[in-house]
């Protein structure tokens, strides 16, 4: 009987194609974030890249005992102009998307990324600024970030890009994250920006945040419909 045990030990179930099959090796496919991500992804303060507010999370969607994420712990005030970035996410019929999550990634006020892949020495890291944030949308589909107006970063062929924030949209019904950018109406470099240049002129407005109140920039995100936001193939 011990012989039988010995032969069974260390043997796996019948092989079939799966994640471990070398013939299938390649990019793990993307799947939707679904509607129930709120207790796993957006943390309190995740949408506040400047101060100490709770912006970004929706703890009312689950019990406080189930909040296992971080409390954002800012180390100080980042340099640069503090701004708010706000907007509403809507579907192809204009209905607010109440279960979306918006992620941002941006350079600091000097145009430097907090990343080991930004090795430039002509722009400094800001010890108090990471540049990554998350905001859940509200029941009205609204997102809101507090951040810093980003500086300009290099683009292709020695050009400088216009100030911008990279954005990812996740939601139930979105199988592959939607990548886009926020630019700022009236800022320098919009005419020569190499990424904006890829966008047909009549659709560029979907990427331009506008400011009607000092320091508050608004950009709505339309997943479809006549004013559909431009999304990028990355």
């Amino acid at each position, binding site marked *: 009987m011990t012989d039988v045990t010995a032969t069974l030990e*260390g043997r*796996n*179930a019948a092989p079939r194609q*799966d*994640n*471990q*099959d070398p013939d299938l090796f*390649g*990019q*793990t*496919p*993307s*799947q939707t*974030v679904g509607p*129930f991500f*709120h*207790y*796993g*992804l957006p*943390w309190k303060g995740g949408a506040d890249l400047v101060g100490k507010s709770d912006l970004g999370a929706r703890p009312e*969607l689950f*019990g406080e*005992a*189930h909040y*296992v*994420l971080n*409390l954002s*712990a800012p180390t100080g005030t980042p340099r640069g102009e503090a701004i708010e970035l706000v907007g509403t996410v809507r*579907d*192809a019929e204009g209905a607010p998307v109440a279960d979306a999550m918006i*992620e941002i990634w941006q*350079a600091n006020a000097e145009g430097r*990324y*907090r*990343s080991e*892949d930004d090795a430039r020495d002509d722009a400094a890291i800001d010890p108090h600024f990471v*540049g990554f944030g998350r905001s859940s949308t509200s029941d009205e589909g609204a997102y809101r970030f507090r951040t810093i107006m980003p500086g300009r*970063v*290099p683009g*292709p062929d020695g050009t400088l890009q216009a100030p*911008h924030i990279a954005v990812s949209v*996740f939601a*139930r*019904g*979105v*199988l592959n*994250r939607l990548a886009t*950018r926020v630019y700022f109406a009236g800022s320098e470099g919009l005419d020569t920006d190499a*990424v904006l240049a*890829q*966008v047909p002129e009549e659709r560029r407005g979907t990427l331009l945040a506008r400011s009607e109140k000092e320091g508050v920039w608004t950009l709505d995100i339309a*997943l*479809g419909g006549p004013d*559909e*936001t*431009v*999304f*990028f*193939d*990355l």
Partner: protein
Amino acid sequence: MSAPVSYRRGDAGMPRDLVPEYRSTVLRAPQQPRIEIPHTLTETTGPSGCWDRLMGKAAADLTAQHRGEPIGQRIVVSGRVLDEDGRPVPDTVMEIWQANAAGRYIHAKDSWDAPLDPNFTGAGRIVTDADGRYRFTTIRPGAYPWGNHKNAWRPAHIHLSLLGPAFATRLVTQMYFPDDPLIEIDPIANAIPMPYRQRMVSRFDIATTQPNRALGYLFDVVLKGREQTPFEEDGHD
């Protein structure tokens, strides 16, 4: 400064945006084609080395977050985060969330009447080691019904979220379990054509299984790789 090295685009296993069988995509999938843009520093960078500060300490044991042990089959999920060329992706964060053993989420909008487990939240996060390895302990999630169509059930799955090294490598996916008959009738898994769908199916592994403790599953996550290998520095510039 040298130009940033681009990442590769999505491969044949990438889902279409509009999958009418998955009803939520109908009003949420973009109708215009995505526009290809050059990869600049924005796309080739991502936050690194500051996970604790951003998201807090690692939480790799989802069975140890409350006073008691959760109900259900205890499992260990282990694997590596790699790029398309098989290189490990070290020091990258993986976030995890899932339903409990009965298939119920601790979310106010999950209105299914399967029982909640006071000892299970179902959220965790881990950072890969120098070889790109990760490991977490949890309970096997149950399947759950959803309103997509008549008698629709999601196969058991664990939601995974990875940032990888760059904005371009961002990935949110779901890990499935071997021999789950619900996978082939699930519109979300079926958004991925065969055979690529099988990349999302973990493998039961007796070597990962912990005696008298937990069943083991292997799952590697493969992120986009670089367009070309950066030149090795020879120290003579």
